[in-house]
């Protein structure tokens, strides 16, 4: 399999704080990679660096072989990288269908074509019954579904999901997990930032662990959870002996 995303030596400081330092990892085409770590580890910052919302101080991000550092977010999206936000950002006054159409316009400027592409994406995430609902009236999980559908409508090759399970109840987490499986089944490359270990173990074959902005471990889920560094980062040093 070819490399979809190659992140090398990425670094970003905010004032005196090194939010991300010297982080490198590679996402292979078609795989699901999870970026995990305690609060403030730099996961969301890494997302913002990859997707052009922040400009890194150093390092490079190559998507399918070409450099994307320095591109604006909309250009990154045009290169086939779509993201969701930790706090869902739906276009509140628009209906679900209009929200997703807005994403579909990237590849299909004609409204009719965009509408049918949008319906496909809405159907895929299981939101068809809410098609005409105003986005701000959706429940939390439906807003997450909407975010995914909207990102999906831009026809990405890589989907970056930022804590899509946060705030969901256990039954909803199961639904979200199966949705991620379904996305992966379509051959999409997925990078997922997640807090919930149960969900991570269920979806990812490959895990990168960040702590204080640095990569402290990487590997298969079973190896990573046994890594003393990881246990220390998550539970405090007293547990890691």
């Amino acid at each position, binding site marked *: 399999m070819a490399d979809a995303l190659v992140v090398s030596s990425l670094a970003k400081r905010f004032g005196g704080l090194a939010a991300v330092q010297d982080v490198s990892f590679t996402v292979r085409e078609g795989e699901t990679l999870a970026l995990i770590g305690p609060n403030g580890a730099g996961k969301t910052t890494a997302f913002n660096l990859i997707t052009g919302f922040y400009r890194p101080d150093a390092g490079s991000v190559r998507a399918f072989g070409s450099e994307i550092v320095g591109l604006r977010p909309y250009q990154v999206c045009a290169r086939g990288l779509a993201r969701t936000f930790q706090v869902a950002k739906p276009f509140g006054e628009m209906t679900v269908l*209009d929200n997703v159409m*807005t994403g579909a316009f*990237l590849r299909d400027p004609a409204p009719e074509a965009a509408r049918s592409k949008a319906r496909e994406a809405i159907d895929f995430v299981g939101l068809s019954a809410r098609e*005409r609902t105003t986005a701000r009236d959706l429940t939390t999980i439906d807003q997450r579904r909407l975010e995914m559908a909207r990102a999906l409508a831009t026809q990405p090759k890589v989907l970056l999901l930022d804590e899509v399970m946060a705030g969901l109840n256990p039954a909803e987490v199961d639904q979200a997990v199966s949705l991620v499986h379904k996305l992966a089944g379509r051959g999409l490359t997925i990078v997922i930032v997640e807090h919930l270990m149960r969900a991570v173990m269920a979806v990812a074959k490959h895990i990168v662990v960040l702590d204080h902005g640095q990569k402290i471990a990487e590997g298969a889920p079973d190896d990573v959870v046994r890594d003393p560094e990881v246990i220390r980062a998550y539970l405090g040093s007293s547990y890691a002996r």
Partner: protein
Amino acid sequence: MAIPVRIGVAAAGAILAAALPLVVKSPFALDVLIRILLFAAIGTAWNLLGGYAKQFSLGHSAFFGLGAYTSTLLQIDLGVSPWIGMLAGGVVAALASLPIGWLCFRLRGPYFTIATIATAQMLMLVFLKLRDFAWGAEGTTIPNLGSAPLMMQFAGKAGYYYVTLALLLLGLAVTAWIERSRIGYYLVALGEEQDAAEAIGINVPQVKRRIFMISAFLTAMAGTFYVQYIYFIDPQTVFNFSISIEAALVSIVGGVGTLFGPLVGAVLLETTSTLLQSRLGSIAGVQLTTYSLILMAVILWRPTGILGYFAELVARRRAKRAER
């Protein structure tokens, strides 16, 4: 409303409006109608930027003034017809919107609004100083040619009425087209969540720039018309802050981001203002006092405006029906 129904309604409205001067002959009534149409047209232009894209400008008098001065300068210095001057004014305003936008779009929310106020007031101060080029603070009268339709001058008020009606219809047509095309969706999206809009591939700065140009162009055309109508131009008149205020107000009261909101708002505000003036005479401050009270009432009780409120009712009913 389904699209054919809407077009039907719009066509019927346009025909009715076109026939109105055959019935209404009083110059006073026509003057009121002209003011309604004029501010509906300006509001419609404002609505593209302020209503759909939620970039709340209070500096649209800049474009109104630029349109007015461009056509007047061309007419008086070079004898160019205001019809051509109107287009030239639109181009000048659209070009001026680029540097103004470059400055103002760096800011979001209230600070964007403040920046637009500052740029428009600045332009007025500049034109007050331009004595040799553009008559300075004294302004100038526009030569009255009697009935000269080719120079946008008409014997009766009906001619002016049709010009404003055409301006409004142009604005509505542009808005209706934008509403249904991709750019319309992009405008609402960036007005709601700028980051999310960028994340799904929308070139936000470019979209803002383009809609600002269109909005400026349409506003400038109204400026040209206005000075032809009142036969006079000076900076205090055509760059007046109250033009910026009314452009925003008719849209907000009628319903931001709705096709006919500015028209509804203009009917309401201008009618109120006319009634007040006929009761109280023209006391300084009455009109804007009333407008500010209406604005406050709308903000506190119906922030989506009159049409926005109806649209919500319709949408809610539709959503309920879909769930059943």
